[in-house]
């Protein structure tokens, strides 16, 4: 039974779900292009990649991985809460997801900061002078891929913000859950990408 006042003949949850999945496919291929570049240069510079990876902090990477995995669970749980009409729980779970995402970004900020302090950043003269070509490529890819990923986390925060607001207002609810569910799908995509980024950059020492 619809809780909204107007009957909206244009509400098609299955259609908007397909739409979000199609968008997710474009994101997979977008990052896919970068994974192709990674795989080619890793193949051609295997030893240099191993060496460069040792500069990365595996603990921070692992922490960030755990954070994202938990956040995927919390946003998935929030869709269950919405369906069970547990509005307060939905909101808390969404807020936790949001906070975890912020913590991820803060970690990334410090991680990059440390790199920059060591003279490791895109186009740095230090890198070109002191490192082999393979290592320079590794870090170029590292910054581009984690940077693009971080941008997607920011977008995810915006989307979650919308979902939070609408759940609070009551326009997203058990009979009209699409916005939250699709926001969840998007967030899981962000997690998926990191699931591959983490081992390929941090665990190849």
């Amino acid at each position, binding site marked *: 039974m619809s809780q909204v006042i107007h009957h909206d003949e244009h509400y098609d949850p*299955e259609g908007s779900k397909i739409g979000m999945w199609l968008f997710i496919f474009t994101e997979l291929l977008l990052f*896919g292009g970068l994974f192709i570049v990674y795989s080619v240069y890793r193949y051609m510079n295997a030893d240099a990649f191993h060496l460069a990876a040792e500069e990365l902090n595996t603990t921070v990477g*692992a922490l960030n991985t755990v954070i994202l995995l938990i956040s995927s669970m919390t946003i998935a*749980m929030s869709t*269950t809460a919405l369906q069970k009409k547990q509005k307060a729980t939905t909101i808390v779970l969404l807020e936790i997801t949001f906070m975890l995402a912020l913590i991820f970004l803060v970690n990334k900020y410090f991680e990059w900061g440390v790199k920059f302090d060591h003279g490791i950043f895109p186009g740095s003269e230090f890198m070109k002078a002191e490192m082999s070509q393979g290592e320079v490529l590794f870090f170029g890819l590292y910054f581009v891929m984690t940077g693009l990923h971080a941008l997607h986390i920011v977008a995810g925060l915006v989307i979650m913000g919308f979902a939070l607001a609408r759940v609070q207002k009551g326009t997203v609810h058990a009979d009209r859950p699409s916005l939250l569910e699709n926001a969840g799908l998007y967030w899981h995509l962000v*997690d998926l990408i990191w699931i591959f980024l983490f081992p390929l950059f941090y665990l190849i020492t």
Partner: protein
Amino acid sequence: MENEKHHIVPYRLYAVVLLLLLVLTFISIAITDINLGAFTVVGALLLASIKSGLVLIYFMHLKFDKAYIQIMVGMVFILFIAIVLVTFFDYYFR
């Protein structure tokens, strides 16, 4: 009008999946120290694939979705892998 998804996924299921994901993450960190040579990549990718499979099937709800969505997702992954393979027809044989 459509509500083909009356099935509500219990919280417990999501928690179990998270647990599995954390275990797999721990395993992939643990095997880093083992020198597997050329199989390092295979091992890393295998574990990452299992993890992403769990995310896709449970968190992203594919298990409970209609078949055509599952097929679309599968085809996209197959397409991407095929493109990588064909690209390596160049690099592997140079």
